[in-house]
């Protein structure tokens, strides 16, 4: 009798495990890697340029734009043992950094970005997950507004695809995008979309923010939703940007207030440095 009970239990567990494992997510049809080149102001270090590799997973109705390294870290952090491992790595890196002052040691353990953009073209909305320093992780969902793209006559070849140039104003910046009708997906890097073909390159007029595709593959990868969703606090786009600005300008005083940590006075940027801004500027 006992043996029967154990077998039933085991079977039940198996079915449960299978059911859990079978939870499927929408599959992408294409995988595009982009380099996000960003110029920004890092306090007294001045203007820093950074390259972050991003991936776009997309099918005709849904897409996910994220950094694979960030997702790997987030997936680690979603389990207790992974969190412990992350803590160990971070601790070791901090020790090494304080000893050698070699910044690259830290680059391997810290986030380069925490941005995720999930688009749902069929439902006409997108969700952005990001991190605002001191404040924490936040997300917002907005309807996809149709960007008023102006298609021009200029063409260019990118990664072997004939691309057409289009321009548009979007959230405070003037964007130039190169899209290819040969890939029939009305998608692109970050929030950019709505052109009759995939956007392979996009830059705004000051070139502080540039996305460049450097790889395209067919795929059947799943577009898994974000890890640890409960950690994100709901907000709105404008609010998130304003908070980012606030923390950027007053990080030292905020640290003093919140954490009782004295890191010197707030840095006052030069005129040139003051021109640096986020990818969206319509929050001001």
């Amino acid at each position, binding site marked *: 009798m006992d043996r029967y009970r154990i077998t039933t239990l085991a079977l039940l567990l198996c079915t449960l495990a299978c059911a859990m494992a079978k939870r499927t997510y929408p599959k992408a*049809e294409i995988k595009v*890697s982009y380099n996000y080149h960003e110029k920004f102001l890092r306090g007294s270090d001045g203007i820093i340029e950074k390259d972050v590799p991003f991936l776009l997973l997309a099918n005709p109705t849904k897409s996910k734009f994220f950094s694979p390294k960030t997702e790997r870290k987030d997936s680690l952090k979603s389990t207790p043992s992974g969190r412990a491992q992350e803590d160990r790595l971070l601790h070791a890196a901090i020790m090494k950094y304080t*000893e050698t002052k070699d910044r690259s040691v830290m680059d391997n353990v810290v986030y380069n970005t925490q941005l995720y953009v999930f688009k749902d073209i069929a439902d006409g909305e997108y969700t952005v997950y990001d991190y605002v320093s001191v404040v924490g992780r936040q997300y917002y969902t907005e309807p996809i507004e149709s960007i008023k793209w102006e298609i021009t006559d200029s063409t260019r070849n990118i990664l072997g695809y004939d691309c057409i140039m289009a321009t548009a104003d979007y959230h405070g910046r003037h964007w130039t995008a190169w899209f290819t009708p040969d890939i029939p997906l009305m998608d692109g890097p970050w929030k950019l979309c709505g052109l009759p073909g995939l956007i392979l390159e996009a830059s705004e007029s000051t070139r502080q923010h540039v996305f460049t595709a450097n790889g395209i593959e067919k795929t059947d990868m799943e577009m898994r939703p974000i890890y640890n969703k409960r950690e994100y606090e709901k907000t709105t786009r404008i609010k998130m940007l304003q908070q980012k600005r606030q923390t950027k300008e007053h990080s030292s005083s905020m640290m003093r207030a919140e954490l009782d940590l004295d890191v010197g006075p707030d840095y006052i940027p030069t005129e040139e440095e003051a021109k640096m801004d986020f990818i969206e500027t319509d929050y001001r």
Partner: protein
Amino acid sequence: MKQLLTYVLCLLAGACAVAQVNVAGTVVDKVLGEPLAGASVIVKDANGKIKKYASTKANGSFAMSMAAIDSCRLEVTMMSFAKQSIGLDTATFPLTILMEPGETRLKEVTVKADRIREQGDTISYNVGSFAQEQDRSIGDVLRRMPGINVESSGKIQYQGEDINKFYIEGSDLLGGKYGIATNGISHEDVGAVEVMENHQPMQVLSGISFSDKAAINLKLKNKAKATWTFHGDAGGGYSWQPEGAIWDGELFAMAVMPNFQNITTFKSNNAGEDLSSQATDFFASRRGTDLKRHIGISLPGVPNLSQKRTLFNRSALVSTNNLWKLKQGEFKAQLDYSFNRVTADAANVTTYFLDDGNSIVTENRRGTDRSHSLSGKFIYELNKRSAFINNTLKTNIDWDDIRLDMTGSIPNSQSASLPDYYVRNDFKLIKRFKGNHLVTFESRNEWESTPQSLTVIDRASQSISDHAFHTLESGAYTFSIKGITVSLEAGIEGYLRTLDTSLPDMPAEIPGMTENVLNTNNFTVFAKPQFEYWVKRVNITLTTPLKYSHYTFDKSIANRDETYFSPSLSFNWKPNNRLSISAGGGTGRSPMSLSIIQPGYIMTDYRSFRRGVDDFYSSTSQRLSSRIAYKHTRHGLFANAFVMQSWSHNPYTLSQQLYGDYVVYSYSPAKSDSKRTMASGNIGKTLDFMRGSANVSGSFSRSESHLLSENREVNSVSTMWSVGAKINGAPLRWLSIDYRFDFSSSRLSMNGTDASWLGSMENEILLNIMPHKKWEWHISGEHYRNEVTADRFKNAFLLDTKVVYKLSKRLELSASLSNLLDQRTYNYTTYNQLTSFESQRWLRGRELLISISLRK
């Protein structure tokens, strides 16, 4: 009137209504009959220009209102469906478009890590994205990385400057002998090559003392970590010249464990590869014993052709290198043995240019050089933020026996034995206390002995015994406040040397002593203050060493006391991550090399005799240099340029005198000035479209010097410039290409008379054709075009081929046939200071080599 107006308005409105066409419809999956959401709908005009576009909604519908649709077409595309194209002239709306399943053809470009990434001061090159199918070792791939230059000796430079460390997984196992790693480690075991700019190897000095050098770190793939990796090649075959069997084999083992590293390798060949250079220590500091080789015989070489074409050798190399990480610090033991037997034949005509007619000497030379080199190095190192301790014990024993037979104007046989015994211990301790205060103690002791002998059989015999001991003990105190570092080093230096030479049978024509018995000793006290300013992106370093030396010469020359001051200043500015500018200069007085003091003659070869100075001199020199380096890692662009000018003033001049067929070199107490200008530049760029890279380089040098020949002053100016280009890549899936071009031209002018420019050009190409993933077929060729005399060119074309069959990932078979056209000789002329040199040389003939390669 009102009616009319209404009418006109109605008409207008009607016209407008007619002009607007509502292009609408539904897109449906033909097989399933379901509406398709997210399809792209485009209206194009007759020229194919996009007029309007939309995407289908969840119910598959779309709608666009257009002014005119004459000769327009509607295109509907969607991933995994075939494109639909409908002429709109005859269409009736709403349309129903049925989409048939079909493949959307993608030109796939593999999604992968960036080829070059930059994180702070570290630049990371992705090895897989630079390697080509024909590459074997990591050294082959390093050569393809823009910004990195591997010299033919194997020495690595980054942005034109020698690297200062070579790490494997962050550990410095090999020191300067990194040729063992670059020639041995398979590129498939390496994930990334990291270049750390401005690398300060001593952690205790990081943030205190600036370094303008970069280090390289190999990041291994996980499969090569915490395990032993092995690979081996064995090849055998037949050569048409020298006629007989050839072999080429290699065994390589590497362990990279958390607390232990080992690289052990054994190599041997007689196929034209000199292995001793692979164990060269590129970081070896200059020997303080300062002994030189007096005997000047060596085998004839072939300067314009690559070694693999001209070297008739039997070579072997064994090297084992171990590193243990201890609780405190690490211990390293390295042992190397290399053997090299080289034979060479040459026919030469040497012409000496003299004002009263040229003097011509003809000789045919045939020689054998057997050299053995045994070295051991034992290092203990503690490298922490608070302290640095390093003790290095090193011994080198080299034997070099040369036999050279000559026919011609002066037939003779020479035999030389040139052993060199060297032991050295270096100790360095740096301790940091109270934050930014450092105390350094350094001790260096070296001993060297070079008992050389030269016998011209049946004629003369020269024997030399030369010993030196050098010791240096110093202490330094350094402190650093807000970016300013002041350091004062002081110490003592001692040098003891004895030279004993005898030449019993000197040709009667040459007057002078033939024996030297002398001691050249000195005792030095020195102080070396250094000021360093290093804030944000600017570094300025001023060093002002002051030396007081007391020289004793054991009665042969009067004792001397001298003071030397040689300040130098360097400046480095990195305005941003991409650009680095540096400049520096120095001036000063320095003692001449004591090994030049030698009042009696030494026979350096069968017809040359050399005498040194019989007094003590000091020389002065000045130097200015500047360097600029630029990089844009995202575009894979690296560029650097370097210029240098130096002057030196010696109170003695080298003079050359002929006595019959004999040449006598000596020094005269006449002032001699020399001047040297050098400039070089290099630009490297990735070529992502074919997974390749390209490199262009150029250099210029001009040196002006004086010497006395036959009691007449000769002012010679030699000028040289060169350009080179390299390109590699895989333009097609089944084809990869390596191409290299070099051109150099030089001229020698004497007393204002210009000789003509002589140019030499070299082209090398390799095509690797991969008809199937298991097969590779290499076709390679080298073309040389060398200017023998003005407007007369000597061409040489050498062709090779190789077939590789990859049985599995672990096992590979190959057959190569080199010098297909079986070119066996090569003639050329070169100019060398005051002589012209015409020669005939022999090449390695056609060779067939069949090899098997195994790896774990």
